[in-house]
Structure formats: structure tokens, C-alpha cells
């Protein structure tokens, strides 16, 4: 194994970064594990989540009042249409191929034994 030359300051910098990351992770994780820190984080999260929920609720009510679908409604519709298209395509392919896989290749034999390389 080659030893690093002392002149390689970039290697020293990388080592330093690794050590800093390890130390900061350990310190940060321990700090966030303290009850006071966890409680504060929880309070912040609660406030953020409640604000987001209120804003979302307000937007939904506004869109509902003017009879417009929300982003979630449109995404949901898109996903459902996509799923229906995919299902129809699968049925079409299956009907055309008489039960063979979609890409038309024959089903592989289920006779493999361990130790084969191909």
C-alpha cells in the first residue's frame, strides 16, 4: 500500500473533511437526541405542517368555490388514465401473443440448477 506524501495538501484536506463530517455527525446526532432539541424540532415541524395544511385547505376551498380541479385531482386523473392505458396495452399484447410475454420472446425453461454460468 502506497503511503501518502506529506506534500499532498489535497489529501490532508480530504482527511480533514472526513474527520469534520464524522465529528459533526456525532455531535449533531447527540444534540438532536436531547429531549429539549427533539421537542423544539417537533414544535417546528408541527407548526410547518399545520401551516401547510391550512394553506392547502384554503386553496382547495377557493378552487372548489370556482369549480376548478386541484393539482392533486389532475395528477390523480392522469395517473388513473395512465394505469388504464397500460392495462389496455397489456391486454392487447397478451391477446395478440396468445399468452406469451409482452416482448414476444418464448418463456424461459424453469429448469436451472445452481452453478450454471449462463
Amino acid at each position, binding site marked *: 500500500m502506497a503511503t501518502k506524501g506529506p506534500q499532498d495538501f489535497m489529501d490532508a484536506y480530504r482527511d480533514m473533511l472526513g474527520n469534520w463530517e464524522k465529528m459533526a455527525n456525532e455531535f449533531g446526532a447527540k444534540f438532536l437526541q436531547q429531549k429539549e432539541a427533539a421537542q423544539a424540532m417537533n414544535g417546528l415541524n408541527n407548526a410547518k405542517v399545520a401551516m401547510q395544511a391550512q394553506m392547502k385547505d384554503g386553496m382547495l376551498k377557493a378552487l372548489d368555490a370556482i369549480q376548478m380541479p386541484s393539482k392533486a385531482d389532475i395528477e390523480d386523473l392522469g395517473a388513473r388514465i395512465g394505469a388504464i392505458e397500460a392495462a389496455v396495452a397489456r391486454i392487447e399484447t397478451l391477446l395478440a401473443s396468445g399468452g406469451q410475454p409482452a416482448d414476444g420472446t418464448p418463456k424461459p425453461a424453469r429448469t436451472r440448477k445452481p452453478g*450454471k454460468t449462463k
Partner: protein
Amino acid sequence: MTGGAAAQADADPFAAARREFERAMLRNIKGVEYLGSPAPVVGSSGKDVLISRGTFRLYHYRPLVDEIYRMPLMLVMAPTNRGYIFDMAPGQSFVEFLLKAGYDVFMVDWDAPRPEEKTVGIADYVLDFLPSAVQRVRAVTGESDVSVVGYCAGGLLSLLWAATAGAAGPANLVTFTTPVDFRHMPQFQAWSDKSFFDVDRLVDTVGNVPSDLIMTSFEMLRPAQRVAGNIRLYDNLWDDEFVKAHRMFDRWGMDALPLPGEYFRDMTKTLMWDNALIAGTMTVAGRPVDLGAIAAPYLHITAQHDHIVPPPASAPLIEMVGSQEKNQVELKGGHVSLIAGANAVRRMWPMVDEWLGEKSV
């Protein structure tokens, strides 16, 4: 730069300076390319979607060899993240490795739950999604035996299903980094302390728990990781392989899924607070769960440096599962690098193949 050239650069200060200058130039050129280039393609192995129902997906991967094992293999992903961690890129894909080794591969994957799926709980995963997936695998392959491989919470759900399914359970069971003793997850314990964490209020407010909340929790386990990761990315911008791997893993890490509200509530109350599997009080929809009832051959793999599910949180599993044939292995690596990346290619994948191959005929 070759190993020989790097060693020469280590010994010669002028060569080292030249190497750093070249890298600095490449960083600038490739940095501009990086900003303008699209996200890397992931999950590209050919597959058919067999089930797409709300948050629940079942894929069947197309075979890559003309002779496969009799027994199909079903991967079960954790509901917090996307399943493409098993299929990152050609050459770095567990799915591709399994297909080339001759397995008939299926995967249970998850999409973001719809608003009306806020009522989906652990019981839906264990008594509906997983049995439906296995039933479909059996119908497609004509085989009654199925091997199941679960990752993290996917492993936990697979265990709960295997313990309650009786004779309809898996023929072989493999779990990676699967938690069972939640007392040994100190950060999650601290953050979900029931003296101030009101899970009912959270779930009743948001319905499904947003993905940024899940992602923040994971990031707070290693608060400096993102900053150090970005510095390391800049340092390695000259290295295309490093940048590609960084972008794939970063994309996956940022691609956390929202969790169905009831599932989050169940996990918090039953497992995080009551540690019900260790206490022996776990039930799913009123059915008692006894991991001792699992009889299938069982392989349990943990990661030495797992910061999400530390080894003590998953180690008791091997004693709790009732199988006659069971093995536990602790490998080098972290929660993600255990299953994807260079170490996984060298260590974990061949081990799973060796263990499972002889049981799949």
C-alpha cells in the same frame, strides 16, 4: 489517472501539483456540464407492471437468460422509498444481477399514496398488498413456491406476512437491515417521544405524512452528510463515475415517498412506542404475530455501519424467527451501500445468490 501515476504523484510534489491543476480544470469544465445535464436514468431493466393499485405496484422483470430457476423471487421495497435502489443502472443493478444469475424476478414497489389512502395501515400491507402480490406471482409463474426478499421496512412487512400467512407463506425468506427492536434506534426514539410527539394530531392534520418530513428525519440522523457530500462532489467533479454514482444515490435519497397516515400511526404506536415485536404483543388486524411461526429457511443480513437500523436493532430477529435453517450475516457497509454500490456488487449480491440458488430449484 492510473494507480501508478497516482503513486508517482504522491512521491513527487510537482506531479501532485500538476494532477491537482488538471483536476481543477476538469472540475470547471465538467461542473458546467453537470448543471446542464439531465438526471441519470434509473430503474431501466425491462419490466411489466402486473399490479398498479393506488400506492401498490407489482413488477415482473423480463428474463435475461433462457433457463431460469423453478422458484420465482419477489423483492419487497420499504414504503418510505422507491424500489429503483435495486435497479440503479446497468452493471449496478441487483435486479440485473439476479436476472443474469437465472432468477425470475418480481418486485413489490410503492408510489405516493393518494389522499384517500390515508387510511392504509400495516394490516393493509400485510393482509392485502403482499398476499395479492404473491397470489399474482403464483398465477403468472404457475409455481406455488415463492422466495421473498425484503429491505428495511419491506423486510419487516415480509416478516409480518410470513408469520401470519401459515402454509401460504414464502418458501425462502431473506431480509436486509430489518428493524425489530426499536429501542435501539435512539434518534427515532427521541424524536417520537410520546411525552411531546402527538402522532394522532399530526396524522389527523395531514392525512398522509409528507415526504419532506420523512426525508428530514433521515437527514437529521447524519446532519453533516449533505454538506460534506456536496463538498466531496465538487472535489470529484473530474471523475465521471463518481459524479454518476453520486447523482443516482442523491436522486434516490431525495425521492422519499409520503407515508399513508394510518401506517405511520401504526408504526409509531405499535413499534416505536410499544416495541410490540420484542414485547410479544404485536397484532395485525387482531391476529397475534408470532415470528416463531415462520418455518421457511431464513437469511438475515445486517450492515456494520447502518445509521438508520443499527445492528442491535435488527440482531434479535435471528433468534425470534422459528425456522430450522437460518443464518445471520453482518457485512461491511451502511444502510444503502449494503444493497447497492460497489461493496454490494462484491459482497452481498453473490452471497444472496449462493444462499438462494440451491433453494430455488
